[in-house]
């Protein structure tokens, strides 16, 4: 890759990193007023950029029990004090899941993934075929299975590689589109599942017929071949493949200021 390049953080130059492009593309996906269930890390960064750029009324919901948090720095956990202090309402953890997530009150579940497969299924449990003797033990489910089941739709943000983008996940922690169209309905999952996967290379959307993730957008300076190399299944490219707009100076400045303040 030539562009994006690694840039010293504090300079507001037109250069930017692929991680920055990913966070900004993810931020743009959140429209104003959306009620968004936010995981820590990339999703939280993107959601907070969105709230400080085009979506001031974005409603941030963290599983620690905050509805409508308005942090002025990036939280370093899903339960930082700033999230509670700036929230419209603070509630207990059982209430988050039972009264707010489960009935489908949340528009977007914003998740990360250790492994993601062709149909948007997510693994954050174990790498390897043997659950009892895993190659790598990952943190586990957390809130993700029910976020993926009950939010009206799910956005996944993940750095793309052959290791993370696989034909089939080793363990289904959170269901995306199962093995294809109709599986979510069959399983009684009421949200639409992953409608958008944002990586450091581009953006994927599920094919309306098969529910396979299809490359629909390339970030600037990335070509299809690079994406193919970083995809663990036979990549399908959308007919109307488009290119992501480069980050604006305002977006970059917002992202970098947030990152600075929290480091």
């Amino acid at each position, binding site marked *: 890759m030539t562009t994006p390049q690694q840039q010293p953080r504090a300079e507001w130059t037109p250069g930017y990193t692929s991680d920055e492009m990913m966070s900004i593309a993810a931020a743009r996906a959140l429209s104003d007023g959306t009620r968004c269930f936010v995981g820590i890390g990339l999703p939280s960064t993107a959601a907070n950029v969105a709230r400080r750029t085009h979506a001031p009324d974005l409603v941030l919901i963290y599983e620690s029990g905050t509805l409508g948090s308005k942090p002025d720095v990036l939280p370093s956990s899903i339960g930082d004090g700033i999230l509670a202090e700036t929230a419209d309402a603070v509630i207990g*953890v059982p209430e988050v899941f039972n009264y707010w997530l489960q009935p489908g009150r949340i528009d977007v579940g914003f998740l990360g993934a250790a492994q993601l497969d062709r149909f948007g299924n997510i693994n954050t449990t174990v790498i390897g075929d043997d659950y009892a003797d895993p190659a790598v033990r990952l943190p586990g489910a957390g809130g993700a299975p029910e976020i993926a089941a009950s939010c009206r739709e799910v956005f996944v943000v993940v750095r793309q590689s052959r290791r993370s983008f696989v034909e089939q996940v080793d363990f289904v922690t959170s269901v995306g589109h199962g093995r294809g169209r109709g599986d979510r309905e069959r399983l009684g999952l*009421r949200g639409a599942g992953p409608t958008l996967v944002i990586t450091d290379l581009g953006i994927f959307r599920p094919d309306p017929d098969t529910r396979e993730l299809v490359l629909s957008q390339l970030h600037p300076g990335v070509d299809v071949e690079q994406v193919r190399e970083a995809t663990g299944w036979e990549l399908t490219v959308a007919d109307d493949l488009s290119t992501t707009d480069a980050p604006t100076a305002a977006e970059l400045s917002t992202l970098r200021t947030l990152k600075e303040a929290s480091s």
Partner: protein
Amino acid sequence: MFICRTCVRYANDVKVAQVAEIVSLADGVGRLVRDGDTVALEGFTHLIPHAAGREIIRQGRRDLTLVRMTPDIVYDQLIGAGCARKLVFSWGGNPGVGSLHRFRDAVQNGWPAPLEIEEHSHAGMANRYVAGASGLPFGVLRGYSGTDLPEHTDTIKQITCPFTGEQLAAVPALNPDVSIIHAQRADRRGNVQIWGLVGVQKEAVLAARRSLVTVEEVVDDLEPVPGQMMLPSWAVTYVAEAPHGAHPSYAQGYYDRDNDYYKEWDSIGRKRDSFEAWVRDTVFGGEVSGK
């Protein structure tokens, strides 16, 4: 851990007129936590009872079934120190940093002892505590459907709605032998006051047979605070003063999260010898807990 006995008449063993006794941290842990017990330390990011965790290591408890939604550093320490036989949980990581190396070493390599795991989602764990606090044998949720969790976790079953025929998930109540939480304050009668993120602490205490609440301070009167959650004295077994007892997590109104410590733990916990040095120097060494 799977307690769901019809013969248990009541969730708590408490007698008429019993109110929480205020004791030292060492006495509280010593009187309540026994080898082989099922023990829950709760606190969701906020108010994690770290001082109590170190005290359990210090007292050399063994064969514990540890229950916690987010076994983060506090359980990495207990697991690494060999206190645990089993872990019941939904997310085991070092939040904002990465993996729990002691947890991984136990699961992947059986060091210092094999660790059985019983794995749920947050929604499942929360509902297991709610059922436990409610004196019900099980909780119901929309969960787990299509995931690989039920294949490996036998405490997830299906249940049918008697009105609609719909299938839902059922999980058994959690009723720990002991639950331990940390709170900002208690009064001298043992009434407990918590504010900020309250997580699943009330449920953990009410679900348990016995409970210990460590607090930043014991005061004469509990001034009302917006967002407070109160636990009456008669719902708690022991209260122990443990200032700074949630460090490296935070206690709203007292101190902030020590983010550097979470990063530092990554290198302490990564190797067996650096971890053992930490146990020796910090847990059994000078400066420890409750002061």
